[in-house]
């Protein structure tokens, strides 16, 4: 079984993001970029499936600028077998990403698509669900455990109030949550080997997808600065303020 893992290049989670002066978005020039952390988890899971003999090939795909190659090389260094870069400049919305992925699926015919549940830049949390709808495949979202069966899989989902285990037929679209696994570091020899692994470059047009955004961003602004707190003198003063000023009790 082939596993397809879409990965996204995003602003590194350690970076303190800054809004651009013209309020058109966040600053990405000269900012450290990395693989979306949820995608790292899906890459790790795919590699583990391969190591366990349950998958035969791990193909990673990224949709973005030429620099997304770095992200793909990173996935190859972790242990993916092959990479596809679908070049597209500017913002590509989840629906366009899902349509392109549908095209990639038609070519690659994977038995499983493993995605991060969301990307930490726009937090959309839509691509997996849209891809499920477009392909007509079963979907399991926010998955924290995967058990592959014969022609089906059991997926444990993190839902409000606990865990839910569902059975889905394969092929399926799965979006992964934080607790599924802990991604490995790429070893020095594997970083070297990643250079020699195949990386194909395609264009969005190759899949007949128009990536023009459907949404228009009016303005991106900083959240309001947090107001200074106060130190209360006693519990009764605290209760009084919670009741009459904050009006929460």
């Amino acid at each position, binding site marked *: 079984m082939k596993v397809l893992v879409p990965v996204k290049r995003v602003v590194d989670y350690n970076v303190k993001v800054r809004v651009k002066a013209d309020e058109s978005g966040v600053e990405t020039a000269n900012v450290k970029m990395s693989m979306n952390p949820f995608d790292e988890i899906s890459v790790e899971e795919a590699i583990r499936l391969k190591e366990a003999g349950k998958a035969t090939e791990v193909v990673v795909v990224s949709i973005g600028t030429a620099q997304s190659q*770095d992200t793909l*090389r*990173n996935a190859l*260094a972790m242990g993916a077998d092959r990479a596809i870069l679908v070049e597209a400049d500017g913002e590509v919305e989840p629906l366009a990403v899902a349509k392109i992925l549908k095209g990639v699926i038609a070519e690659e015919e994977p038995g499983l698509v493993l995605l991060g549940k969301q990307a930490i830049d726009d937090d959309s949390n839509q691509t997996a669900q849209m891809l499920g709808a477009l392909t007509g495949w079963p979907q399991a979202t926010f998955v924290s455990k995967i058990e592959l069966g014969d022609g089906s899989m059991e997926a444990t989902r993190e839902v409000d109030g606990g865990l839910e285990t569902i059975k889905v037929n394969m092929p399926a679209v799965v979006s992964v949550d934080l607790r599924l696994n802990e991604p490995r*570091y*790429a*070893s*020095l*020899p594997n*970083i*070297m080997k*990643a*250079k020699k692994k195949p990386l194909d470059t395609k264009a969005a047009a190759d899949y007949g997808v128009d990536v023009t955004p459907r949404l228009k961003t009016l303005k991106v602004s900083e959240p309001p600065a947090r107001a200074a707190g106060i130190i209360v003198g006693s519990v009764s003063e605290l209760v009084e303020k919670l009741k009459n000023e904050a009006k929460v009790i």
Partner: protein
Amino acid sequence: MQFDLTEDQRSFQEMARNFANNEILPNAEEWDDQSIFPEETLRAGAALGFGGIYCRAEHGGSELTRLDAAIIFEELASACPSTAAYISIHNMASWMIDRFGNDDLRARVLPKLMVMDHFASYCLTEPSAGSDAASLKTRAVRDGDHYVLNGAKAFISGGGRSDIYVVMARTGEEGPKGISCFVVENGTSGLSFGAQERKLGWKSQPTSSVQFDDCRIPVENLVGSEGQGFAIAMAGLDGGRLNIGACSLGGARASLEAAKSYMAERKQFGRRLDQFQALQFKLADMATELEAARLMLHRAASALDGKHPDATQYCAMAKRLATDTGFSVVNEALQLHGGYGYLKDFPIERYLRDLRVHQILEGTNEIMRVIIARKLIG
């Protein structure tokens, strides 16, 4: 001239930085405080290729360059110079076996060293032979299929804990040409250790004297040929000096970052410290000198990679400059922290204690000047 890192080097750097930040930094204070040798973390690093960064791939080495190693050691040391420096020593000793050892010896000891199932120590210095290393007195006498070692080594990193000791001992005449290099395995009868040394820094690695009393080792454990030992020891040190210099860069960089953050928060006279021009100038000088030392170190590493005829001289220059600069930067960073810098609640004093010894070991900075001057004057 190319000053930017390659794509691979950026990947090595990022991986080493992530490993340092996630696996080393959160524990470094405890390892220092309680003198813990972090074996599990070292093995986790070795699984990523840190056990034999520039050893050949045949027995599990990563087969990277000295420049790659310098980049990696700077990152590891930014979290804990002491732990990074032990990894450097392990790499140096392992490389000497890989480069000069016979195939049987390499096949026997390298696989476990590369994954750090076994730890390695480098044994040159003796109680009465420090800077004048070629005057060492430990003797190895051939007896049939064995060598019998007698003598003592001092200040041995990993002493008492390491599994493999790469030992320089005299097999012939006085001076450097009478010295040979041997692998002594822990457990060999006649091998014993002194008490653990009590040290200013470098507390996350054991240090002790190593004693040889009629210690018999098979002739196969000779590394290289008889009389080649001092040359092997010095070849190992070229790389060791780069690594230690890189460890100083890493510790100094972390201290500079800590000083920057502290100065952005601390207010005196109604202003943040980083708004005082006198202190800004101090930061500017620290950053400039650190960058200059890094350039020198990378230049020397490239020279060693390219087998430049003056590589040893460049390595000595880089070691001297990077370790002196590193200590002065961490010292300034402590000053910028004021009284808080002297407390263990801030990490600066740990970096200061760790970096101080880099000016002493792998050849003192005075010996670095001897090497450089010898080349200059001839």
